[in-house]
């Protein structure tokens, strides 16, 4: 029963309610802490391993090799797609960014258990810094992709840079949105992590990474195809294809005619996901400390 506040005279504007923040917008206020959390994430990621960050290159290289042999050579997708290695690798780096960002963000709260239980700080900082670490992880891979593309005749254009940046933005926002949502649920129900694992398993196959979009177009009913194309991950992968692969092929491949429109939808869906993720996160945040 609020008795005290009605009896004491004080200026309420001077006071704060502990444990309430502005959600992801607190990032600006806490940018120094965020930069330190990022540094910590990067410094401790491969701590104790001799090769360290080399693993960030070994893993995608192994993935690439496996897919190239099985999908490209054995299943012969190689023949239908010019410069298939570049095609494949641009898809793989996009999916890897998504996988890494979503997986890290989902476990971010539970991983920082000690802090969440004892000190209040906007908890959104943990998933956000997790996504940041994934991004730092991703950029060298994109650089390698660029070098390879340069070797086979890639030339600069603003449209390609725009496609790359937009693709990255869509993935980061979408992964953060899903990460906030599942990360918040994961505190009370560790089932969320398993759901994310299934989503990630689908992600590679539900976007044109290992095959081309027109194969889906030819086989799927039109409603399913539309659904497939507005998947934000599909949009991002196609944008990456436009950025890295399209400039290096000589025969004009058929590109999805709604590519940029679909990218717009993808971005909208990603932002919608982020809004829902943030709302759910805020709703559940109050019980993090007692459930974790």
């Amino acid at each position, binding site marked *: 029963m609020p008795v*005290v506040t009605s009896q004491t005279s004080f200026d309420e504007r001077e*006071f704060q309610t*502990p*444990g309430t923040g502005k959600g992801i917008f607190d990032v600006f206020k806490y940018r*120094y802490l965020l930069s330190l959390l990022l540094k910590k994430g990067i410094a401790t990621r491969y701590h104790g391993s001799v090769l360290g960050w080399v693993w960030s290159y070994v893993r995608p290289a192994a993935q690439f090799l496996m897919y190239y042999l099985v999908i490209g050579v054995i299943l012969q997708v190689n023949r239908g797609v010019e410069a298939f290695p570049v095609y494949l690798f641009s898809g793989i780096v996009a999916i890897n960014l998504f996988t890494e960002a979503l997986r890290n963000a989902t476990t971010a709260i539970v991983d920082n258990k000690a802090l969440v239980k004892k*000190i209040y700080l906007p908890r959104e900082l943990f998933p956000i810094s997790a996504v940041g670490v994934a991004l730092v992880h991703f950029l060298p891979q994109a650089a390698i992709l660029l070098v390879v593309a340069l070797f086979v005749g890639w030339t600069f254009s603003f449209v390609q840079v725009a496609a790359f940046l937009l693709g990255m933005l869509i993935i980061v926002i979408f992964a953060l949105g899903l990460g906030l949502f599942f990360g918040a649920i994961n505190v009370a129900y560790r089932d969320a992590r398993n759901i994310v694992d299934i989503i990630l398993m689908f992600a590679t196959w539900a976007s044109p990474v290992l095959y081309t979009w027109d194969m889906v177009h030819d086989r799927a009913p039109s409603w399913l195809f539309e659904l497939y194309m507005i998947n934000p991950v599909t949009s991002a992968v196609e944008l990456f294809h436009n950025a890295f692969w399209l400039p290096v092929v000589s025969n004009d491949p058929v590109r999805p005619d709604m590519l940029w429109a679909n990218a717009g939808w993808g971005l909208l869906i990603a932002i919608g996901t982020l809004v829902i993720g943030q709302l759910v996160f805020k709703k559940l945040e109050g019980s993090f*400390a007692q459930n974790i």
Partner: protein
Amino acid sequence: MLKTSKAPSIIVDGVRKTFVIKHTHSFKETFIGFLKRKKLHSEFNALNDISFVVNEGESVAILGYNGSGKSTLLKTISGVLRPDAGRVLTRGRVAGLIEVGAGFHPDLTGRENVYLNAAILGMNKQEIEARFDEIVAFSEIGEFIDNEVKHYSSGMFLRLAFSVAIHTELDILLVDEILSVGDAPFREKCRKKIRELIEQGKTMVVVSHDTGTVKDLCDRGIVIRKGKQVFDGPVNDAIEMLKS
């Protein structure tokens, strides 16, 4: 103790905190429990209708036995937990000496951990840089500051963690059972530092079982029993009340 101003610093108003205890942990158990008409969960009030105002510069002890809700109360003031009813308002920067070292990462060096934890406790870069030497000096870590924290002894670890926490820029300090860390000389040093903060007019809320510490640091006590506030007044009377 000197009171320079009467402006409220912490307002706790009709706060209730209810914990729900689930008796089932899977769908199967829930389903069977439902068929057998068992209770699936029970609730208990860790805090029930707690109200008080702490004025600026006051130092207040929260007293009570284990499980009485003291730490829960402190957590609602720090913002870690949100009350289910009523509200908590604070004015100024709140820092907690609550389980110091929570943000320490064993694989980072002492220096990196000082920066990280000071930032976690709400300091910005300039403030940390300005106080860095003071923090290291207080902790008596010396040359080991650039070693990884996992190689520290538990005493060194606690000294550094405490040193970071106590040097935070703050207006309100929350202290939870912290004065039981370290060896006797370091404990004395900590107590001195806290007394210094009290003299500077910082607001303080202390949770401790150690009546000696409480008498020494606080002039007012609030006694909590099973989540209910049973006494609020001079600290000596509060300790008497607790024992009765």
